[in-house]
């Protein structure tokens, strides 16, 4: 063994140098690796890109949606900053949530149950979610929170964009509402490959139109999103809001509607507690002045997400507040359709002096078709038949016109057609004729159907909007006006001059005269409510004043109209036996609908109006002889029409200068530029 001879110090030195060499090799490897990472980056920019992607995040800045204005510039829908107090559970700390929310609640004087609800909500939220503790803060509340912020870790007082509907329920149906886009919509956009739009839709401030004009005008008014590059930390939280590249959002364009907010509100108020609709239309331009559906709902409830309980409540309400009755509701027009039957008959060659004896019923096809007036109207001409709403006259007239002519005239007058006015679920209604029958049934169309159609019953269905169009096209002398809701907005052209309809002008004058009888002659079915509006006009200037008695030199402002009652259900023999004699004794949902269509002023027709009161009843009509009966549908619907028309005729919105988006935006400009 040479062990003893080994010089351990030399061995040590050799091996120490070996180890140092090894260490140096390792160092070399490390330096090479460092250099390699950077060289790799020089070539591919991988790490630079990743570092930048890490560091900057593009934050979408939601654009304010275009403002919706009424005809005269009243704000109907506006996107404005909302002051709110929010918190992030992670930053507050789970165990502090209750205490912190309690303190916020104390500052804002929130009720105990609201505080408890927020605590539950915050506990259920994801750690990094933003929980809105309270929104819609007043400035003083917002300031109070701001002052206390240092003591409230994780709590933020901020302003965000919120869509507001200052008119509350009055415009819920025509305007609709916006909501957060749901996952389905976002998925659809992603499936279509529009990544940018998907990012936009995911922004918490973004809302999209879900119904009404808000939905229809979405693309025109949503504006253009801006963005801001913000510096974020690893947790995704913004560490530096400013200094990054920024593009300001472009606000959406404003839109002026044809509706007059004052008239709209009046109609909604007048129908409070009733289920129904009221449409007022300019017979020359087609501008919809009022489009009210009652009961309304508050669209503001939907903007930040409505609770399922509340939604169910609205959805299950028997008065159907979410249902846009003015355009979606399809009703039997009842006797209001006699306007159409009259024109069709005269068109078919029935002479204007055609007379019929009404003995209360009309035998046809082996059964008796009754007039609503059991004792009969006696001998009546068209004028009398309109005025007293004699069914027998119109049975006879319709038989001479025939079902096809009735249907054709109905279509000319605007029934059976879907109007694209920018709200969803517009019903085309139903105008039954041979072709329609064949598409539905196999058996031949019975001859008696024409008698049902004559008085607006049976399969015939029309929306209040269509009835207003019908009235308008007769009142304007047969011009094919179509309704429109947007007065000025992106892509909206002024209404085209309506074409002349191929209807007998003479006939329409006679029918209009009948309508005049209904509304303005003693004995007319709606005379009580429409005979004297208390409005007077100066023939020289057409200026209208409201007064109990006519001022000197003034003439009465008068209307023409037609009442209607749409049978929902015939009282059965069994019910009659139980003593149910009157329609009003039936359950509410089984009572008849009350309708009224009218136009005015008679001396220079400008507005047409249609009112439907669902299940408005018709006691007096069905059982005449009861004291104070006033005729079909008129008890419930005509007074509403009279009140709304009184306001419309007095104000005459069509002859006033409408607002323009340009001047309105100029007015708003300084406010919009002010930093939030």
């Amino acid at each position, binding site marked *: 063994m040479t062990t003893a001879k080994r010089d351990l110090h030399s*061995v040590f030195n050799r091996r120490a140098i070996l180890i140092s060499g090894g*260490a140096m090799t390792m160092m070399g490897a490390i330096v090479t690796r460092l250099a390699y990472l950077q060289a790799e980056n020089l070539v591919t920019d991988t790490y630079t890109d990743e*570092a930048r992607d890490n560091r900057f995040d593009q934050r979408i800045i939601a654009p304010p949606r275009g403002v919706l204005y009424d005809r005269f510039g009243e704000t109907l829908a506006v996107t404005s900053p909302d002051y709110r107090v929010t918190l992030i559970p992670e930053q507050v700390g789970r165990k502090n949530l209750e205490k912190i929310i309690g303190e916020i609640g104390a500052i804002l004087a929130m009720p105990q149950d609201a505080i408890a609800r927020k605590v539950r909500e915050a506990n259920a939220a994801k750690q990094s979610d933003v929980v809105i503790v309270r929104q819609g803060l007043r400035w003083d509340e917002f300031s109070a929170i701001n002052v206390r912020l240092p003591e409230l870790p994780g709590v933020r007082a901020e302003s965000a964009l919120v869509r507001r509907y200052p008119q509350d329920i009055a415009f819920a149906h025509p305007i609709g509402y916006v909501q957060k886009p749901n996952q389905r919509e976002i998925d659809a956009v992603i499936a279509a490959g529009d990544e940018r739009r998907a990012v936009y839709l995911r922004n918490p401030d973004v809302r999209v139109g879900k119904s009404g004009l808000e939905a229809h005008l979405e693309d025109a008014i949503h504006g253009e999103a801006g963005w801001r590059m913000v510096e974020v930390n690893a947790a995704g939280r913004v560490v530096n809001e400013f200094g990054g590249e920024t593009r300001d959002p472009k606000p959406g364009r404003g839109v002026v509607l044809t509706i007059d907010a004052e008239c709209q509100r009046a109609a909604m108020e007048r129908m409070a507690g009733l289920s129904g609709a009221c449409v007022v239309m300019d017979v020359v331009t087609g501008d919809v002045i009022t489009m009210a559906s009652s009961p309304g709902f508050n669209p503001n409830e939907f903007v930040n997400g409505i609770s399922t309980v509340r939604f169910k409540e609205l959805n299950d309400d028997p008065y159907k507040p979410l249902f846009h009755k003015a355009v979606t509701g399809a009703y039997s027009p009842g006797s209001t359709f006699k306007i159409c039957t009259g024109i069709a008959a005269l068109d078919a060659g029935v002479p204007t002096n055609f007379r019929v004896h009404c003995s209360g019923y009309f035998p046809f096809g082996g059964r008796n078709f009754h007039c609503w007036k059991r004792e009969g109207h006696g001998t009546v001409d068209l004028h009398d038949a309109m005025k007293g709403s004699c069914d027998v006259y119109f049975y006879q007239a319709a038989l001479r016109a025939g079902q096809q002519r009735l249907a054709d005239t109905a279509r000319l007058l605007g029934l059976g057609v879907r109007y694209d006015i920018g709200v969803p679920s517009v019903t085309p209604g139903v105008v039954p004729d041979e072709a329609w029958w064949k598409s539905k049934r196999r058996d031949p169309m019975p001859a008696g159907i024409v008698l049902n159609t004559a008085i607006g019953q049976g399969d015939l269905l029309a929306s209040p909007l269509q009835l207003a169009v019908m009235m308008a096209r007769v009142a304007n002398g047969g011009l094919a006006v179509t309704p429109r809701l947007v007065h000025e907005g992106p892509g909206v052209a002024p209404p085209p001059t309506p074409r002349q309809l191929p209807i007998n002008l003479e006939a329409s004058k006679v029918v209009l005269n009948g309508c005049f009888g209904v509304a303005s002659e003693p004995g007319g079915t709606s005379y009580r409510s429409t005979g004297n509006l208390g409005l007077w006009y100066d023939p020289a200037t057409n200026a209208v004043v409201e007064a109990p008695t006519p001022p000197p030199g003034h003439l009465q402002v008068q209307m023409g109209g037609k009442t209607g009652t749409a049978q929902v259900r015939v009282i059965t023999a069994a019910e009659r036996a139980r003593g149910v004699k009157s329609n009003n004794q039936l359950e509410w949902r089984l009572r008849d609908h009350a309708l009224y269509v009218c136009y005015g002023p008679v001396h220079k027709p400008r507005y047409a109006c249609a009112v439907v009161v669902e299940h408005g009843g018709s006691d007096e009509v069905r059982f005449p002889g009861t004291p104070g009966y006033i005729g079909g549908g008129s008890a419930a619907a005509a007074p509403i029409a009279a009140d709304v028309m009184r306001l419309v005729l007095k104000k005459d919105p069509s002859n006033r200068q409408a607002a323009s988006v340009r001047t309105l935006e100029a007015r708003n400009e300084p406010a919009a530029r002010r930093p939030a």
Partner: protein
Amino acid sequence: MTMMSSAGRPRGVGDKLSRLNWTIITLLCALAVTGVIMHFSVAEGSWAGRPLAHGSRFAFVLAAVIAIALFDARVWLAIAYPVYFGTLALLVGVEFFGETRMGATRWLDLGPLSLQPSEIMKIGIVLALARYFQNLDPRHAGTLLWSIPPLLMIVAPVTLVMKQPDLGTALMILMAGVGIMFLAGLRWRYIIPAAGAAVGGAIAAYFFVLHQYQRDRINTFINPEADPLGTGYHVAQSKIAIGSAGLFGKGYLQGSQSQLDFLPEKHTDFIFTMIGEEFGLVGAIAVLAMYFALFLLTMAVSMRARTMFGRLAAAGIAVTLGLYVIINTSMVIGLMPVVGIPLPLISFGGTAMLTLMAGYAIVLSIDLHRDQAATRGLLW
């Protein structure tokens, strides 16, 4: 042993002070100052907290180290076994009474003092092995039979530390111990088969001994992109930081990866990444160069020492330093699995600083007293 040179036997404190290895002390200071500078950046430009704590802690420890180094070097020889076996006892204590933090039982709670015996063992193993070979008959050095006691002295603490579990520290103790055995003259004819067995053993250990989290670390090391948000996240972010830094870095306090918290553990294990990001390739190499210089200087001390104990102890400390630096930097740049070894003197944390500075108290002392005979009889 003659003392002819001017570097003769030191006398007074002043003389001793002047003959301390100031180059090593300067390098230690430079590294600690680098630490302070980086902690200032971690704190986003604030002195409060870590930068101040790091600096003051170092200053205090350095003063103690210099004071201790001035004492006779033979004290280390005397305490080598007591330190080793005392620490071994503490490691057993940890096994039974240890405090569990972050899933690992490494701490022993001794009243006001919270102790990590595995850290002391990094020095303990060096002292004990140096002590063993100091007294070993040169004829026995490197033979199989006489290699068994040191091997057991290594295996015992390594096993205990592995059980905590702390793979990084176990690895460091093992490698420092093996390194000392190698320097002490272990025969190549044993080294080569042992190395082969170690590789086989490592593969077996992967499957039968390692914990799942340790296996995960190795797996993600082999394929870090497979799990970029899990265990691979640290390294992926670290590579982004260094790769995007450029030659001179993004500038002090400007490292976006570090400043925006994409880089985790940047004040401890991943501080080298921050150096790389803010000071670039040049900065990283400068820091590595300082460490390497320190390593070489320490190795030089070991080669200058005249006793086997002095040589092996100093070389052991050098190896320990090298292991710290190589393991730490390799893991942050993706050359090695993440094992949780800090960058000594720069990473925040008292234990690693204390361990290494204790080592340098020994190195400085050995260097200062290199001409002393290291026998027990001469102690005091």
